[in-house]
């Protein structure tokens, strides 16, 4: 996932500003940022096509009638009219190739079909649910990074006890299931202390518990890799040199070690995205928060295949975007990436 497009020998391009300036194509030299964007776009299209293809054939693999599979699986007792409608909508009586191409054609124009359980347009529904989940995930990621860097900082500066304590905290944090963490947080902070609402209602404080629940396991994982790399950097000669020049311990951390600490975590952004989205399924259900996760759970429970397909495609697209952003962040933090 961390493939970096190498620049041409004479492609002296740097800085993202060049991406907007279309350079004349000479001898097939394309500006690196433009090539980076093109590469990502092609990757995104390939991933979306592949996910759509996998699901298309999965529907046909379910034993029995594909029309029934779309309407909630075998034994869903879909009415004859509904089955006939789906058969017509998806062209299930056409040859497989025609069906497949028609499906891809609908995908290209952004038509994800109709959710049979909610009786609405899937793409519209996704757009409606997206902002809530994105907000939740972004806030959680920020909190997770703050927690991870905070414990890593404490572990490097605080001596052996701090290192041991933070290391065990990280392992426990990364092993905690979201559903249990949410339950315990609600029990302590809502039921016992009454500080925070147990459901994520429209009020701004409602988002605190979901965000903390999502952030802690991610922080555990980020903390583990961050600390490993931080300790390696702290043992490197440049750290000793900086200290010898009179850099203070916290100055060393801020100005020299922080970049090293952040890198492996940024390389894991695709993984962090997965954890956040999987967690969102659980957390949005527990805190009764509208969003993509809860929509997906509903769709899976009711076996609403058009909606499941829609969420899967949306999250695959989001994954590609997140990995690209992680790659950009890595370049911003690591000068070596830019020179390469």
């Amino acid at each position, binding site marked *: 996932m961390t493939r970096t497009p190498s620049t041409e020998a004479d492609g002296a391009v740097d800085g993202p500003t060049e991406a907007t300036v279309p350079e004349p194509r000479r001898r097939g030299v394309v500006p690196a940022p433009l090539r980076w964007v093109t590469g990502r776009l092609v990757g995104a299209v390939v991933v979306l096509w592949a996910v759509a293809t996998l699901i298309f054939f999965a529907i046909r693999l379910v034993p029995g009638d594909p029309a029934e599979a779309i309407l909630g699986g075998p034994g869903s007792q879909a009415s004859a009219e509904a089955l006939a409608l789906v058969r017509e909508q998806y062209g299930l009586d056409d040859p497989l190739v025609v069906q497949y191409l028609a499906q891809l054609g609908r995908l290209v124009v952004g038509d994800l079909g109709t959710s049979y359980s909610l009786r609405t347009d899937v793409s519209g529904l996704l757009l409606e649910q997206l902002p809530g989940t994105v907000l939740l995930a972004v806030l959680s990621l920020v909190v997770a990074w703050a927690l991870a860097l905070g414990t890593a900082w404490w572990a490097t500066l605080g001596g052996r006890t701090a290192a041991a304590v933070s290391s065990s905290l990280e392992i426990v944090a990364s092993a*905690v299931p979201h559903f249990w963490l949410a339950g315990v947080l609600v029990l302590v902070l809502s039921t016992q202390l009454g500080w925070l609402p147990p459901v994520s209602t429209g009020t701004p404080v409602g988002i605190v518990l979901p965000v903390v629940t999502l952030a802690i396991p991610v922080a555990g994982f980020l903390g583990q890799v961050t600390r490993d790399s931080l300790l390696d950097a702290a043992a490197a000669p440049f750290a000793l040199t900086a200290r010898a020049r009179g850099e203070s311990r916290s100055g060393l951390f801020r100005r020299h070690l922080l970049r090293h600490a952040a890198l492996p975590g940024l390389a894991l952004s695709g*993984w962090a995205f997965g954890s956040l989205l999987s967690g969102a399924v659980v957390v949005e259900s527990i805190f009764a928060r509208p969003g993509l996760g809860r929509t997906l759970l509903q769709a899976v429970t009711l076996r609403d295949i058009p909606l499941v397909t829609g969420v899967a495609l949306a999250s*695959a697209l989001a994954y590609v975007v997140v990995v690209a952003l992680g790659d950009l962040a890595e370049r911003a933090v690591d000068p070596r990436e830019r020179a390469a």
Partner: protein
Amino acid sequence: MTVIAELPRVRSRARARVRPPEVAAAIVLGAVVLAAVAPQLLAPGDPLAVSPVDAFSPPGLAHPFGTDESGRGIWTRVVHGTGASLSIGAMATLIGTALGVVLGVAAGFGGGRLPGRIADAGVSRLLEVLFALPGLLLALVVIAFTGPGAVPATIAVGLATAPGYARIVRSQVVRVRRSAMVEAAVVLGRRPGTVLLRHVLPNALAPVVVLATLGLGQAVVWASSLSYLGLGAPPPAPEWGAMLSAGRTYSTTAWWMTVFPGLAVVVTAASATVLGRALARRGSELP
């Protein structure tokens, strides 16, 4: 799963000393396995025996973890649920590693010739696509097609973990394949099948054992999450996630119903992680 991929590169100054947390983790995992194999030894009661008089007793001498709405002991149910939770996690890990090895070998063993390159490109693209549906997402999509249940949940979690293992196996196979040892075997006229079984697999699989230990914890967490969401083991069975889900209704009045089954998941997963990291550290000291 990428996290796991990063772990074997543990710093070399960590020596092969046995540390107290690792011993504790091994003891805990041993107890968990014992509870799975012979629950009667640790909790003689019947996990399904209803006793309405004892309903909602808080943790005490008779019931160390309290009782649920039907008066069934939570301790007994947690112990008897170990078998279900652990075997779902272990089977899922087994499915994940087996698929991972098949895909990884298919991608990595072909080498530089054309069929090998095509297989590598094909499998690698497939893995990239599967990585775009990370974590529970792939498992949920699988369950949308299979319907809920303990067996579908196991298969779904197994499928969801497979891409991570496949990527590691591929890189290991590629590494071993390029070694002088394999080159020598090829020069001596060994058949590809023999080279694969005698040389490549034994050397490529050592990290997989470590990763499977680390992955077991994750698989137990995911499997219990699916049960919690009502997509795994059905409610009457004592399974950790299902117990938690049942206790949710009473979480304000009977906290023990949700806290203890969850604690079992956390302790199992954390122990597997500690043990996996210990194994990884040992592994990194081998040449």
